[in-house]
């Protein structure tokens, strides 16, 4: 009995350890150093790769790097053109950044769960969460930024009064003003929350399953983690894609004047 309890505690301890961020500071002013570090690193990777491609970009026969970068640009541009009909210098680069950054976040999930924390432990780092998108701060940072842009463009395109009118008089006309306002507020607030929670939930669950698989005997681990990793490859791309497409859709809705 005692051994079992101890084992359970060990398992719980293992999971909790994996889900604890490397933190500095107190209360609200706590910083998750691992999230900040890895997201900056991955952002840097993204910027480095695309900057390199952009510097060498020619209209002649493209190289391998340029080819890939152009494929991404074309892909994102198609998505933007599909749902956004205005002209904006921001939306397409924003979508590209979101897609690549989120994909790289998620991709960290495919590293075996113990490798990076293990290396960290050797270097004296006690806790390490390597997947930034399993940190609510990272997903909310993006979705709140997008939300701010939605508000900004709504006010800019429709005017403050136009936006206020839309909030108050739609969808049921001026006689149901408080109800409209409530509905609209919920609708608007649901956007960033659903964006952030969807990504967080998917990746958190995926990571948790990897951790649980890592708790099994060694001979069972490959049998389970290999299919899950393949399935997860689909999920991480899909989540990055969904985040990007919804951002484009929300921003194009903000641009549409009723």
């Amino acid at each position, binding site marked *: 009995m005692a051994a079992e309890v101890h084992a359970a505690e060990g398992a719980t301890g293992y999971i909790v350890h994996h889900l604890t961020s490397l933190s500095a500071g107190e209360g609200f002013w*706590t910083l998750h150093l691992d999230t*900040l570090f890895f997201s900056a690193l991955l*952002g840097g990777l993204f910027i480095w790769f695309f900057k390199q491609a952009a510097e060498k970009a020619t209209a002649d026969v493209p190289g391998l790097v340029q080819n890939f970068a152009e494929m991404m640009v074309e892909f994102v541009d198609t998505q933007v053109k599909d749902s956004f009909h205005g002209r904006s210098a921001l939306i397409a680069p*924003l979508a590209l950044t979101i897609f690549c950054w989120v994909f790289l976040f998620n991709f960290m999930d495919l590293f075996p769960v113990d490798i990076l924390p293990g290396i960290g432990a050797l270097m004296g780092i006690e806790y390490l969460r390597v997947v930034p998108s399993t940190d609510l*701060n990272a997903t909310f*940072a993006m979705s709140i930024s997008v939300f701010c842009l939605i508000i900004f463009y709504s006010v800019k395109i429709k005017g403050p009064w136009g936006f206020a009118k839309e909030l108050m008089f739609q969808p049921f006309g001026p006689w149901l003003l408080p109800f409209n306002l409530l509905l609209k507020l919920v609708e608007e607030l649901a956007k960033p929350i659903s964006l952030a929670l969807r990504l967080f939930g998917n990746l958190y669950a995926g990571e948790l399953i990897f951790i649980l698989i890592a708790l099994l005997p060694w001979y069972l681990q490959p049998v389970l983690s290999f299919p899950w990793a393949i399935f997860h490859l689909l999920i991480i791309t899909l989540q990055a894609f969904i985040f990007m497409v919804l951002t484009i859709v929300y921003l194009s809705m903000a641009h549409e004047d009723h």
Partner: protein
Amino acid sequence: MSINATLIGQMITFALLVWFTMKYVWPPLFQSLEERKKKIAEGLAAAEKGQEEIELAEKRAKKVLREAKEQSADIVNLAQKRAGEIVEESKDAAKKEGERLALAARAQIDQELQQVKENLRREVSALALTAAEQILSAEIDKTKHQEILSKVSNKLG
């Protein structure tokens, strides 16, 4: 799990990334794509134009060839006609020449015949004279019949 200041840090990172992408990554890549699109379109148009020109040139070449063929046929016809004429002319000339030659030969033959006749006559007369002389010499006094003899001789001669 809790929301804390990491959020602010992440937002700053995000804003920087988006700004950088917007400023330095998207425009050159997108521009190169557009330029290539334009280049390809131009290339296709040029290829099409070239094709058309080839067709046009082929047509022109065919026309020139046909004209040349017609011309050469004309020339051959003309040459044949001219050759026929020349043959006719030379035939005529040959005929005339032959006739002339035959005429000349005949004239010569006539002349020779005449001469032979003359000679023959002279010889015959001489012979006759000699014969007559021999016959007459026995009976006829040359001096007496001198007048007759010379008359006959004259007649024969």
